[in-house]
């Protein structure tokens, strides 16, 4: 019998086999060893650099800078006067997580905190690894060092981007730039040190970065960190320098932006001058679109206004945008061919800021929200009985827990912003619309703000007006002297649903005050809530780390 012979041969061979240790060596197939994965310039670029771009967006909770739930975006949005997820009779109680976020009464062991921390630092560790692999590669391939140097610069800028979010959320973070560090050797750097590190990294990377518009779909730099992306981030850092320079944020004192200096193109500039200078540099690459909605259309990769986006494609990439799913009423979801969870809506504060219910409704309101009777493709959307039209009531969020109220399921205006993609999949979580992270009109408002803060309200007019009266729209006459109040409000309208509200509220000093349905702010009067607590799990692993002040 052949089988028998084979088996006997195996047995005999086994007995003769002396090289047990050779027998136990593994040669994995279907996976790459470190030597294989970085063996040439293409592999190095793919696996040490481009690989990390898989983590700008995400497809699971707390993963990705935007598009997913319980992560960076939620911490920056659902803790503000912009968005709210009211309790709707059993739905959205979720252990009162959303309530604590909205009321700023979170604990330090909230799951989204540790998961978001782990996400951001995962990417930071990847960039550190990537940089080390690049440096190693350079040693044996001097002739390719030009290319490698530009990759290193891009990785450093990526790392700076993720440090920006980490520092913004927690203030004090471990500043590490290499691998092989022991847990016990890590310390928390103060906020100013991290801030200066980020600025310095970006400035050093700038000369090596590709000086083209990043989201341009026909370029290999589509979705990558280019020169304008780094410049935008530098502008954002400079504008918030008063906040980030401050190591003791619970003493209700802040350094003055006029006294914080940057070196921009060899010139010494204070925070406001630096902001203005960086914003101005973006004029070379970007401009505003005629239509506000063009930046959020299904194929918005053609927008000249978008600076940095998360490229989306329901058939290629796995990046998700779950906010439609989370916001829309069930019946609206049905019409669009999917499920939805009937949750998030704009706060009454935000709705009123748009002038809803008055004669002067801001033109962006209907670009940003579904309100009143819901239409889809020109047709009225009906509730499931097929008779009652679905009507959202933007001003009906009169209390956080809507259970038992007449409009418990339909209160609140829902997210629109990005045009409905007819090819969307998975309950509209997979769409073609690229998610906008950085936008030129934000830079224009930053520039206007810097000018106002320098006392030049008149000089701020052109930038401000380019945003407000973009293209053919001109509803209001704009006062010739721009004020901070105008900018604060304009940023809410222009950047609704874009994840910047917490950043703005902290800079304007309103984050830790009472607003909207958050009518209680005594506990955060010291300002400690402008950063989140270091997650409990990390404090347990690092006995030498101290919790952020006030927690």
């Amino acid at each position: 019998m052949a089988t028998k012979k084979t088996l006997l041969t195996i047995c005999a061979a086994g007995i003769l086999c002396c090289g047990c240790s050779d027998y136990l060596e593994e040669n994995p197939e279907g996976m790459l060893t470190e030597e294989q994965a970085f063996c040439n310039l293409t592999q190095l670029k793919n696996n040490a650099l481009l690989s990390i771009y898989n983590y700008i967006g995400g497809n699971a909770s707390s993963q990705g800078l935007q598009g997913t739930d319980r992560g960076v975006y939620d911490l920056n949005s659902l803790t503000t006067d912009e968005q709210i997820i009211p309790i709707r009779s059993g739905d959205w109680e979720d252990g009162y997580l959303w309530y604590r976020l909205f009321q700023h009464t979170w604990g330090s062991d909230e799951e989204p905190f540790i998961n978001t921390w782990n996400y951001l630092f995962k990417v930071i560790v990847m960039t550190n690894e990537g940089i080390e692999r690049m440096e190693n590669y350079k040693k044996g391939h001097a002739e390719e060092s030009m290319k490698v140097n530009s990759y290193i610069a891009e990785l450093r800028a990526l790392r700076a981007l993720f440090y920006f979010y980490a520092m913004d959320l927690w203030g004090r973070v471990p500043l590490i730039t290499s691998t092989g560090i022991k847990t016990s050797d890590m310390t928390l750097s103060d906020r100013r040190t991290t801030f200066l590190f980020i600025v310095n990294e970006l400035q050093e990377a700038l000369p090596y970065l590709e000086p083209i518009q990043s989201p341009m779909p026909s370029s290999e730099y589509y979705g990558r960190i280019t020169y304008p992306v780094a410049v935008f981030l530098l502008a954002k850092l400079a504008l918030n320098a008063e906040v980030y320079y401050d190591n003791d944020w619970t003493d209700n004192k802040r350094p003055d932006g006029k006294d914080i200096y940057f070196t921009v193109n060899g010139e010494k500039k204070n925070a406001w001058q630096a902001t203005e200078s960086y914003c101005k540099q973006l004029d070379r690459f970007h401009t505003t679109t005629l239509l506000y909605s063009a930046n959020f259309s299904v194929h918005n990769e053609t927008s000249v206004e978008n600076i940095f986006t998360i490229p989306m494609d329901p058939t290629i990439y796995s990046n998700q945008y779950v906010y439609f799913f989370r916001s829309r009423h069930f019946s609206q979801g049905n019409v669009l061919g999917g499920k939805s969870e009937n949750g998030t809506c704009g706060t009454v504060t935000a709705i009123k800021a748009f002038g809803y219910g008055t004669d002067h409704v801001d033109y962006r309101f209907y670009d940003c929200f579904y309100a009143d009777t819901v239409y889809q493709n020109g047709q009225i959307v009906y509730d499931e009985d097929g008779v009652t039209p679905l009507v959202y009531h933007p001003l009906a969020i009169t209390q956080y827990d809507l259970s038992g109220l007449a409009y418990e399921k339909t209160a609140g205006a829902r997210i629109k912003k990005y045009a409905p993609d007819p090819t969307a999949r998975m309950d509209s979580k997979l769409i073609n619309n690229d998610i906008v992270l950085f936008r030129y009109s934000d830079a224009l408002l930053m520039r206007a703000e810097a000018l106002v803060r320098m006392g030049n309200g008149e000089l701020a007019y052109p930038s401000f007006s380019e945003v407000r009266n973009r293209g053919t729209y001109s509803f209001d006459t704009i006062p010739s002297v721009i004020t901070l109040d105008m900018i604060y409000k304009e940023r809410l309208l222009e950047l609704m649903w874009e994840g910047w509200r917490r950043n703005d509220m902290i800079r304007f000093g309103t984050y830790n005050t009472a607003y909207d349905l958050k009518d209680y702010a005594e506990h955060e009067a010291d300002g400690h809530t402008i950063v989140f607590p270091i997650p409990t799990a990390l404090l347990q692993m690092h006995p030498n780390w101290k919790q952020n002040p006030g927690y």
Partner: protein
Amino acid sequence: MRQKCRLIIIAMGLACFTPTLYGQEVIDESELNNKEIATNAIDAIKGRVAGMQVETTGNALSAVRLRGTTSLSGGNDPLVIVDGVMGDIRMLESILPTDIKSFNILKDASETAQYGSRGAAGVIVVNTQQGSEGETRLTYNTSLSMSPIYKRLKMLDADTYRLAIQQFNMGILDKGYNTDFQKMIDRTGFTQNHHLALTGGNESSNYRVAVGYFDGTTVIKGRDENSLFSNINVTHKMWDEFMRIDLGMFGSINKNKGIKDEQKLFYSAAAFNPTFPNHPNADGGWDGYGAASQIDNPNVLLNEKNDTKVGNLALHARLTLQLLKELDFTLFGGYTYNNTENGISTAGDASRSQLRREFTMGNATLRFNKSWNNHTLKATGLFELNHELLQGFNVAVAEMSTGLVGYDNLSAGSIRPWDGTASMKETSKMVSFMGKAEYDYADRYKMGFTLRADGSSKFGSNNRWGYFPSVSASWNLHNEQFMKSVDWLNELTLSCGYGLAGNQGAIDSYTAMRLLRPNGIAATGIKPIATFQELTNANPDLKWEVTRTVNLGINTKMLNGRLVFTTSIYNTKTTDMLYPYTVSVPPFKYPTMMANLGSMRNTGIEFSIGGTLIATKDISLNVSANLTFQKNKLVSLGGNYKGEELYAPTEIAIAGVNGAGLHGDNQITFQVIGQPLGVFMLPHSEGLEFWEDGITTYYLTDGMRKVRGQAIPKALMGSNISFRYKDFDVDIQVNGAFGHKIYNGTSLQYVNIGSLPFYNVLAKAAEKNIYDLTITDYWLESGDYVNIDYITLGWRIPLKENKIVKSMRMTLTMNNVATFTHYSGLTPMINSSDINSTVGVDDKRTYPLYHTYTLGVSVNF
């Protein structure tokens, strides 16, 4: 070579336990449960072995535990060895109980140590039927069974649903029908089972060839199963019995139409709006109810497919040379091939997957056995090589343009997402040496010593080799002079043992290596590029998880063997426990890392008693019972590992409840350091609180989550009674479990009036008027139960001497006869041993209850 074991067959060969010195339990073919009609080998010994827990989920075997859970990360199912071929618990699915000669259950480390790195969870050794000398014989077994449903959840019907909604003043979506969706999805199940075996042989050769066929419909519509089995054994002795050759094969093909998501199907059937019609709408589709977002129209779910086809083949050959009278040499080679194919179709998506496993092993054994004067010495040396190859692929497509072709034609899907397609290949290898010596003096004192060395490719190069020693000793008091006068006692043996065994089941190949795998299509550039990244924190220092067991045992036999009593105590400590420990990010890239730290303890005491109460020519009565008390404690989890502080949170949620309004803080069962695995951590409710507006809520007296009980039984029992009168016999098996609790998540969800109008509720909910979905211990109930597993009536048909039929037997069996319990849910027999996301939680996934009636005929030609 079959394990030599001393079998004591009590009159009629029914019901007895025959523990031998080394903590084995041997279950002979004559003692198997419903041997002729059982279709799963493990069912044949369910309830028969002290310390063994068998878990079935729905209709399928899901887990087997011997002396509890010793590992947190996997490898808790015992090692299975069939005719010398090693495999896992799934291998038992390819053998019919009718083809089994005996089971040996090894639990003590002094026995399991010889299986080294895979013995930690115990070992089940199965020997299949061999041919026998004599004229060729043919045996035919057949059975037919019927499974009518006798109990479902009592939900509101459409009329009372309408009334309730009126009563609570809610809006209703009334489609005007009256549909019982629970009844709609179920039916009476039928099975048929045929088995044919041919045996024969002469002095030097014998053979046995068997084939079996099983075909059945389950109690859920559209869920069918059929299987083919075969088992062949051939033995040949030559050259004056100098050489013996055993060749064997066993295999099976199983086709199973399963349910894609049991919880969703049963949740939907119970809670879907009963006013919806049970016929398709004008477009041919089924109306959904979007507001009830957690469930679907049960018809939609019923139309989903989840079909699995499993093929198993095991070949083995053994060559034994009797070199000397005292010395024999064996070469053994085994090869198993398992192929699992799965196809899933839903309304819009479809996928196919395949996983193939090939396992090749070969060993050489030298055995020495010599007796002189009062001494007996046995020694064994073994060298073994293993090679395992796993290969698989899967493809998923989305946006199917028709629901008609499903996974049979994936081209009907217009989208192939990147993460829907993958393939894999993994190999792992092992080299082992084993030495074993046993010494016996005058049948009074016995000593045994084993040492196994295993080298595995799964571990880091500095940790490849593991050493697993064991020692054991026993003293047969009865053979001492001073015991000679005690004539009612036939045996009294004290035994003890200590040994190490390992577990590597928690880790896959290459876990210790730094390897990059595809992580997605980087969302950049013009051309989509799939990139690579390390996806876990590699730990090059990984090694075996080790269990150390001490056991003591007493075996007694009295009254001429009519009463047998065995007890054994064990204490198992797991150390170097493999677990994904929490690490700090940074410096690590991911928040967990597999490492060896931490420890767990399992202790227990087992009693088995078997007695022949009556044994006359016409009447016999045998009763046997086993009782197990088991205790588990997670001692520690974390510490300093190679200079890095690793730890695990003191409390980690294991299982929770899912459903509408239960998306946060919904954990029920936890893993808590210092507690048994799987404890309920819940706030305390003193009962119900009645409010002025007529609403009732749970009266929360202690909002803190505290340990309120454990999910795993503290005690297990199994009992068998068999009675014979002339040609008639009755066999009854009773099993029980005690000391554990069950969280009745089904009731929590279905009594909440807040679920209305979107989700239906229990009939009793309307009067209770509970408007609360808060998780408290209100629905934590005692899980104690006693279950009459089966009653079999047998009749040996008296035949006149004839040339055709030698003997004939008929049986009538009723399975799942009755359950005695205080538990208020459908059944307390839910997952209470496998530490996973369902342990201890009854959460809307229980099948409707049914009895099974089976008529069996067995004919010997």
